[in-house]
């Protein structure tokens, strides 16, 4: 098996896998930030797919049933400071609630509104209780 053919076979597959990973990565990259990081960002993010983690600001949730649109604002984990307005054209996920941590994925076109095409609630852990006991 240490023969020439073994290495040729390995080289073919390694090249194929390498090429696939190399060519697919740029188009599927999502840049991840927390709300604080994102709002403090200096570089332009247009055209990039973004993922932002934050807390749903209490009192900011609006649900437009006619258009099926959900809008809310994300704030940092301490709840204070600046906030990021988010528009999401979909229904509230089961565990979505004010004050909960959520992850939004999408982009910022103009006007500073985050257009989310995915909204994930952090699943209240399969593994640990909400407040880990110290």
């Amino acid at each position, binding site marked *: *098996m240490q023969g020439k053919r073994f290495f040729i076979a390995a080289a073919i597959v390694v090249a*194929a*896998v390498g090429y*696939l990973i190399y060519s697919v990565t740029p*188009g599927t990259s999502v840049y991840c930030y927390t709300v604080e990081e994102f709002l403090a960002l200096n570089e332009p993010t247009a055209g990039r797919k973004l993922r932002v983690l934050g807390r749903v600001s209490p009192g900011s949730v609006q649900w437009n049933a006619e258009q099926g649109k959900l809008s809310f604002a994300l704030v940092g984990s301490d709840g204070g400071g600046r906030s990021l307005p988010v528009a999401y054209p979909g229904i509230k996920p089961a565990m979505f609630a004010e004050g909960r941590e959520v992850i939004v994925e999408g982009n910022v076109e103009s006007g500073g509104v985050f257009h989310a095409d995915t909204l994930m609630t952090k699943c209240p852990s399969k593994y640990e209780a909400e407040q880990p006991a110290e």
Partner: protein
Amino acid sequence: MNELGALSLRLAFLVSLYAFGAALWGAYRRRRSFVLSARSATYASCALVSVATFVLWRALVVRDFSLLYVAEYSSRDLPTGYAITALWGGQTGSLLLWAWILALCAALAQWQNRERNRELMPYVTAVTQATLNFFLFLLIFVTDPFERVPRMVQDGAGLNPLLQNPWMAIHPPSLYLGFVTVTIPFAFAVAALATGRLGDAWIRTTRRWTLAAWFFLTIGNLLGAQWAYLELGWGGYWAWDPVENAALMPWLTMTAFLHSVIIQEKKDMLRVWNMVLIVLSFLLTIFGTFLTRSGVISSVHSFTKSGLGPYFIVFMLTTLAASALLISYRLPQLRSDNELDSFLSREATFLFNNLLLLGITFATLWGTIFPIISEAVRGTKITVGPPFFNKVNTPLGLALLFLTGVGPVIAWRRATARNLTRQFALPFLLGTAAGITVFAAGYHHFYACVAVAFSVFVFTTIIDEFRRGTQARRALVHEGIGQALGRLVAKNRRRYGGYIVHAGVVFAMIGIAASSAFRTEAQVTVDKGESFRAGSFDFTYENAREVSKPHYAAVIADISVKKNGKHFATMHPEKRIYRRQQQPTSEVALKISPWEDLYVVLGGIEGREAKQATILVYVNPLVSWIWLGGLVMVAGTIVAVWPSAAEKRSLAFSREEVSVEAWLD
């Protein structure tokens, strides 16, 4: 009572440490008494961990809220069944379950080989007990299952409602069984390296363990997918989440291992490769636990930062270093003289199958840890989502599917043109025809059509194999078709069991291809009585009502479904709020049929008298084929594992053989 559990864990820690040392010392100084003592210690550590597990179990069932773990994961109103499964509802309980299964497997392997493999066993003992010792260390010093509550509580927090689902109740133990079982073949591989007995004895001895590991990993992954599908309400079954990937990767390498050991047994090739594969599989099972426990990669299944991470890293690096040293030390003896004669041969096909499986594993690993790599290299955390995994793994998976048809039937060494036409002409024609037919029928999706073509190709080769075998038997002995088929399988369980597993893979692949290429999705907000269309179905929102249950309050919508103007089904998606956790969950309404699943999620009800409803509908084609394929895979594995009549006889004799072997030693 709970002190007994804590004490047992501490004793088990000492005993396993002793077993590790005694086994190695006994092997090094050739002192049989130490080896035997290490063996007894293995049984003792198993008994002690069992006691600890039962103590925690008892506490969960009797709702002893003086224990923190019980207070966090159980409650008075939790059904007893779920109180039992709460053992693996949280972190420390899961680790205890892990340690317990490992202790049981170690003892069982020890007992199976009490009169066999004398040279190997001390090292097997050392490896299993060292691993057990690591988990016991975590349970004693880092995350203690018997920790007391700081102040008394009247009632516990209860189990997460999402976990109160029968599939989720059995998914973790099945996965853990699969993960842990890998330790046994790994231990034998290390023993083979340590002793220099590098033939296929270690592979043959652990064949059942390997298959068992694969069996439980398969079931574990399927149950996880099933749970995600039924419970999470996003219409899919696989999201390439780190937790899912963690469970998939060892399955992939174990699949590779299952195939490559055949080549070692038949051709004495790939000896180094097999060593590498089993080490990799073991590391990936530990890495899987590490991923889910350490919080190193965040995912929807939010992980807590638990401080376990560094210990896992140290353990993995130690294992990796020790294994790499052993393999490089034995490299000269591991090399085999046999060469790959041709790319058109069974050996080469199996090799490509292995390389592809490893390629998929690598791509999956790369995508999973990409956030860490990019953060380290570029300072920005970049994740790659499901599109990455789908785009990279689909072509690799399809190539693998194709080889599933080629590998088992192509000739050894070098296939001739005659062999190729004889074996593959018909499957190739049928496959191509099927692919073209599907495309012509309007399903213009390249990968899906290729998947169908390859599936039909593989399935035809399998049927053809059964037909040939049955015919050959009937030509020799006078048997009916059914009888001939039954005996054919019974006499070659491994081979035909393997074919059955492959058939299951084919069904599952068709289901995966169809459901990912052709799913329809609609999200609407409609008034009472209003209809909308998705796929070939018309949905009407009829009404909604409120229901109050002891554990939760729910809103249930009634949605009638018509197909071609005829009544098809009435569906009742639900939104629940669990009182204790104040957590809303969606209960998906599912109408399963062989050709498509209707998957309806209730988004919300608004207005007076439930005037308006927001409804999310998925029409998922052929999803049930995936579960069917999974069942067939599981059934095929059972066929392959079941001892044949000849094996039963040889097992009965093995005691005598063994005593002869020992005498010759």
